[in-house]
């Protein structure tokens, strides 16, 4: 994946410190995509191992955290594609309408988020929690800026519909 987000001017952290600082973020990001705690925990391990393996190929044109998130994203989507623990077809991830909204009960945001697709969850996480700009999200998720804008809006709209 081509990463051209920000010029990395920060000092590089050793792996142990990187793990301490960003493991939770990687976990939450993985959780937002996989929607499965155990899988997300495994993802954290795998992501850091992959990072250690590919450290020499890290081109330092983005921050270490961004690089970690890109690895996490690739890992999670591969996991979804190659396993059957979640019945989500990635090709239809953007148009998943398999949930049923029960307007009579109050649903918490957590439950509502679970009803979104992996991609929608991921976008909400990157925007709301990580606070990335549209441009940065587009780079991480390898999409166009316009796509990110519209998909994020659709995710919010769906979330609003569920919560109403």
């Amino acid at each position, binding site marked *: 994946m081509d990463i051209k987000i920000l010029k990395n001017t920060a000092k590089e952290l050793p*792996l142990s410190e990187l*793990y301490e600082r960003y*493991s*939770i973020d990687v*976990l*939450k990001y993985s*959780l*937002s995509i996989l929607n499965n*705690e155990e899988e*997300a*925990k*495994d993802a*954290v*391990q795998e992501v*850091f*191992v992959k990072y*250690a*393996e590919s*450290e*020499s190929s890290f081109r330092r044109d983005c921050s270490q955290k961004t690089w970690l998130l890109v690895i996490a994203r690739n890992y999670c989507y591969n996991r979804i594609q190659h396993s059957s623990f979640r019945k989500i077809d990635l090709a239809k991830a953007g148009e998943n309408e398999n949930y049923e909204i029960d307007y009579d009960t109050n649903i918490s*945001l*957590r439950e509502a*988020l679970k009803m979104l697709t992996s991609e929608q969850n991921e976008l*909400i*996480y990157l*925007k*709301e*929690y990580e606070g990335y*700009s*549209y441009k940065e999200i587009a780079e991480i998720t390898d999409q166009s800026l316009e796509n990110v*804008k*519209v998909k*994020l*809006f659709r995710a*919010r*709209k769906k*979330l*609003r519909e569920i*919560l109403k």
Partner: protein
Amino acid sequence: MRTPRLKKLNRKLAISGGGRIEKDKHMQDYELKISQFIDNELPVDEQKELFLHLADNEEARESLSDYMQMKVEAKQHYESIRVALNEPKILATNVAHATEQNRRYMYMFYFSAAASVVFAFLWLYTYFLPNPLLPEYYKLQSDYISLQEEHSGALSEKIELVNINSYLYDENEKLRSRQISLIKEVKKQLVEKVVSTNEIRERPPRKNNYLASIPSVKITEDDFLGPKIIGN
């Protein structure tokens, strides 16, 4: 071109459902702008238009309020996630393995770099070092040049000899052809002489009976045809 029937249908749609669809689309455009606005990604020139719309439209204000609330709640939700991570023992082993591999690659890289530096140094050393065999080399080189000159002299002599040889061969050929023509001439003259006599004298009777028994042969002009003899 639209048919009158289609026009009628469009008018009906505009009055009933069509208007609603257009309104929804209009609302959706503004919701998209609201979404961008709360992310601080809406261009300033579009913000003014949005504010005007918000001032006029209660539904839009409601959307803005909902989206902002959702934004805050989503952040709080992600912040509140507390998952105890696995012991990084497995990770440590895996990472150690990976880093060990990386370290091995690094060592290989440094080793090959050092080796190339050593080879480069050796090459430069041998290139600039005065060679003890150099005088001998120059002597051999001069010998070689003189031999080459000698050889070229011999070669020119050889060419000259070849030229002489070819000249002699040509002369020889000429002489040979002349000789052949002379023989032809002589034979022709001889034949003419024989023919002019018009008959051949008969042999006198021989005393020897045996010789007398041999029949006499009449020689004709054909027996003296030159080419047959010369060809042989």
